[in-house]
């Protein structure tokens, strides 16, 4: 890896080019390995493809760039507080449209922080929801027959179904 390079270019699965700084790319283990393996320099024309669509990749890179300075240098408590607030704002997104993609991307790119945050966001969406509300949020098809439903209602008197 040549140390002169500060940012690298990657391709999304849709074929769009994106710039990401080296320090931000290091948040992802596979990207870090790539940085170590491949010589990135201005005259290097190999552009790695990341199997994540453009819309998701924009978000992932946004997250990386925001978190990179802290990951590299450590930060004070007030910074951590601010970052937490930023994370909450950042995670306000549509579930199936983007949250699922972020989960897949974070898992694929081995980004523990983002993965954890996305899982927590998904879990928070279920807080205090009834069974049918959760079905609606996550588009889960009810595959119980009506008899089975009745039985479940009897077995779980404490649960709210509707």
């Amino acid at each position, binding site marked *: 890896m040549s140390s002169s390079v500060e940012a690298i270019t990657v391709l999304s699965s849709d074929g769009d080019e994106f710039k990401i700084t080296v320090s931000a790319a290091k948040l992802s283990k596979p990207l870090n*390995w790539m940085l170590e393996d491949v010589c990135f320099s201005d005259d290097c024309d190999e552009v790695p*493809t990341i199997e994540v669509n453009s819309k998701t990749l924009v978000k992932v890179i946004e997250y990386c760039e925001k978190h990179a300075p802290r990951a590299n240098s450590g930060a004070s408590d007030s910074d951590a507080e601010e970052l937490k607030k930023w994370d909450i704002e950042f995670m306000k997104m549509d579930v199936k449209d983007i949250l699922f993609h972020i989960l897949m991307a974070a898992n694929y790119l*081995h980004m523990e922080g983002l*993965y954890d945050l996305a899982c927590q966001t998904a879990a928070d969406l*279920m807080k205090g929801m009834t069974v049918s509300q*959760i079905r609606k949020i996550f*588009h889960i098809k009810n595959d119980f027959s009506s008899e089975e439903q009745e039985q479940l209602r009897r077995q779980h008197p404490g649960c709210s179904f509707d």
Partner: protein
Amino acid sequence: MTDSRAPKRIKTTTTCEESSKCVTYCLPNEILVDIASKVASQSLADLYHLKLTSKEMMNITDDDYVYKHSYLDRVPFFRMREIPQEDSFLRRCRSSGNLESLYRQGTKEYFLDNELYLKGLGLVRLAAQKGHKRSMYAFAMIVLMRSDARKGSLGPKELEEALGYLRLLRNQKCVLKCRNEVVEFVRFLKWFMSFGLEMAPREHLCRNVPCTNTWRLRTGSWCLLTDDDDENDPNMCESCRWDLEVKEFFATI
């Protein structure tokens, strides 16, 4: 994070078709399990609501990892009439190594079982080593108390470990909170099982009689009311603080 896997390109699902927006289609099981364990660690009601959405979801969330992280604080120690579902759920939590389960089972065995008490202590210790705070407190109190008949194999190593836990809890300002929670459980065991184990604090940790740096209260009140009063002042004798803790613990159980 799911386990390490090949770093090279893995095709992700980039589009969810109209007909298959469902979370179980869009996300692989291991991610769903991670989400479910987050839900389980916050509220069992929410976990059950998620499980009951579909057969598929029920199967996917029936994973040791979810049971291990389930939040059991709101589950009562005992029910007059057992609920079969709850019972099998709790059994599964125990076998999956849920820390609250280990703590409850271990504490119960320690106090009630004259043969398995060392095994019980082992469970409490294991949960403490994995960061379960109530177990840390319970383990420390068990080590710091003496019961002649069952001294067992507690030596200086265990004492050091116990003091380490108490220091950690004090730094996190939760000694009193843990004391109250452990006392509640031990009192319940006492009442319910009427155990007659003789317990007494071991000889004082602080050997100076009288101690000149003895642990004092920051405020003028005559007892330690909140964790905020429990300041770690380096000028005060730490041993005296823990002697007081043992005394208070025994006074309340």
